[in-house]
């Protein structure tokens, strides 16, 4: 298989996320569980996209594949024109480091570290010097409104505050794409609205592309540009809101 360099499309026309015929089948012994079947969609740069669907419809599976945490059974994923299938394990980890930032429902912060340390943590693996790590983490904590909480550990923060720390951490390597898997799932409705509002604000001010899984249709309608609805591992509908 020879590698022919793909012709570069003009920047504005390269999709931020381009998913083609994506399938993921889990095997539990002899049982095959199709989590995603032939999923295709494109998201233009700077889009705030929401993914909805019933529990078990394959939303998390989709995000993990786009985030390079897992590999598909079939189909391709390209982020800003770059195919993930062409990356080896190290290439994937480099992609996770600088190509994408992930936010989870359960925050996934390191419990023994302070908010500040959690935000700066990914920069260790990018080889960024300590002083710069400190400055960047402080600036981001300020931006998510947590300057006063930088020395607190996750257990000393509210759910909303923890998710802000997680968002700041997702931004610290300055990725162009944020993947958020039910970021509001553990939050009350007021706090949930604040968090989605923060993501929308980052989308606006920084031109970040955001792919957010959510169960809350009202929030999706209020903030997202497009909504992708999954059902049994297939794209049921793709709705452009604005």
């Amino acid at each position, binding site marked *: 298989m020879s590698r022919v360099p793909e012709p570069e499309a003009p920047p504005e026309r390269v999709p931020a996320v381009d998913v083609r015929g994506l399938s993921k089948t889990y095997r539990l012994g002899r049982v095959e569980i199709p989590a995603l079947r032939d999923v295709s969609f494109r998201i233009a740069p700077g889009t705030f996209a929401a993914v909805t669907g019933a529990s078990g419809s394959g939303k998390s599976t989709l995000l*993990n594949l786009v985030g390079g945490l897992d590999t598909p059974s079939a189909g391709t994923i390209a982020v800003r024109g770059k195919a993930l299938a062409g990356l080896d394990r190290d290439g994937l980890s*480099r992609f996770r480091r600088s190509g994408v930032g*992930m936010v989870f429902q359960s925050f*996934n912060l*390191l419990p023994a570290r302070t908010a500040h340390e959690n935000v700066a943590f990914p920069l*260790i693996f*990018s080889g960024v010097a300590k002083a710069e790590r400190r400055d960047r983490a402080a600036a981001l904590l300020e931006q998510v409104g947590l300057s006063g909480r930088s020395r607190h550990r996750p257990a000393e923060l509210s759910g909303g505050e923890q998710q802000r720390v997680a968002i700041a951490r997702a931004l610290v390597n300055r990725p162009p794409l944020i993947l958020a898997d039910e970021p509001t799932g553990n939050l009350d409705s007021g706090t949930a609205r604040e968090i989605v509002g923060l993501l929308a604000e980052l989308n606006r001010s920084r031109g970040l592309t955001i792919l957010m899984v959510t169960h809350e249709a009202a929030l999706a309608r209020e903030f997202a540009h497009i909504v992708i609805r999954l059902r049994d591992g297939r794209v049921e509908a793709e709705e452009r809101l604005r």
Partner: protein
Amino acid sequence: MRFRDHMELSLSNLWKVKLRTLLTTAGVVVGIGAFTAMISFGLGMQKNVAEAFRSLDLLNTVIVFPPGGGPGARPDGRDPAAGGESGAGRERGEPAGQAAAVLDDRALEAIAALPGVETAYPDVSFPALVRLNGREEFRLVQVLPARIAGSKAVRIRTGRPYASDEAAEIIVDGFFLRGVGVKDPASILGARLELVSVSFDPSLLAPAGIVSFLQGGALPLNRETYAFTVVGVSESGAFGPEGVLKELMIPPGAAGKIKSLPFRSIWDVFRLQEGRAGYSALNVRLSSPADAESVKTRIRDMGFSTFALADQFAQIRRGFLFLDMVLAAIGMIAVFVAALGIINTMIMSILERTREIGIMKAVGAGDGDVRSVFVFEASVIGFLGGLFGYGLGWAVSRAINRVVNYFLARQGVPAIDYFAFPWWLFLGALAFAVAVSLAAGLYPARRAARVDPVQALRHD
């Protein structure tokens, strides 16, 4: 990922589980401690023997025996293991056809004149009753030329060697002094010591004398008393070989004056039954160990047997290598157990930190980053274990040394260091600890690197 960040990450991870880190490290400390103590004991033994050989000038010494004589030979003069090796370092000279060579004064002079020979002196000792401070003890007295008594071969601790070969002066050793209950060696200097020579009277060896002895008559012995002045107290070497150091030493001139005890005549007595005369052995001191081979060859050409401690020394060293290996193997077992502890701890910690590994990977840590964080943790445990393990080994060795010396001192053995701690042992112990810990951490670290981030992040 930077080296410093590796360090900080590993240290902070270890710090989070202080007690477990402490216990795992303690395992390495004990293992390396045992290993260090074992090795240093082996090295210490080796060093002490080597030093004893060197300080007593034994590597410069060749002992000459009459043909067929020497250690291992039976009293009847016949070799018990003809053709076989009965003592390392002994080589036989076989006079071809001619009459057996005699180790007499002429032979002594000829040997002393050989190139490379510094001095040669007969190894003569005789039993005598020793009277000192009103006590009588039966001891062996060594006749030693003044120039040998004044050399390194005899370590005078208090006082001085005798002035000349003619002086009626005697050197006693510390062992003898303790035997006769003298605590302070200095107090004995200048004291009068009497030797009561007890020798066979050849004239009494006539059949008539033996018959009279068997019938309850007097022993066929001559008893004469000679006065000596104690001038020096020599060290009783813990490693001093027999034959070179005796408890009492007198010069040959004074010995010659002892009635019916001229050198030749004593040995005439002892050798009479074998129909030979001459000394039982000569000590030959070389100017340099390098001359050993040529001198030995020349002496064997004269028809005598030789025994060089240098040859035996080489064999002793081989023995020590074996001892070292046995000791190291015992130490290794302790280190191996510690390595199992490290593996156990690391695997436990991977199970506990699965989620953390998932987070590391989600934020961009590569397999290599995860692996090296764990490898670093293992090597930090190894480094600390090596450092404190060496300290423990050292401390335990010091303690054992003190206890052993305390008890041996009561038996009159001078205090020595039974353990050796050369600088490379420290570096070696440290390197070994780190290497073993790295090896132990490798498998867990690989397992950590293979953790699937999706699975790791799935559940709370």
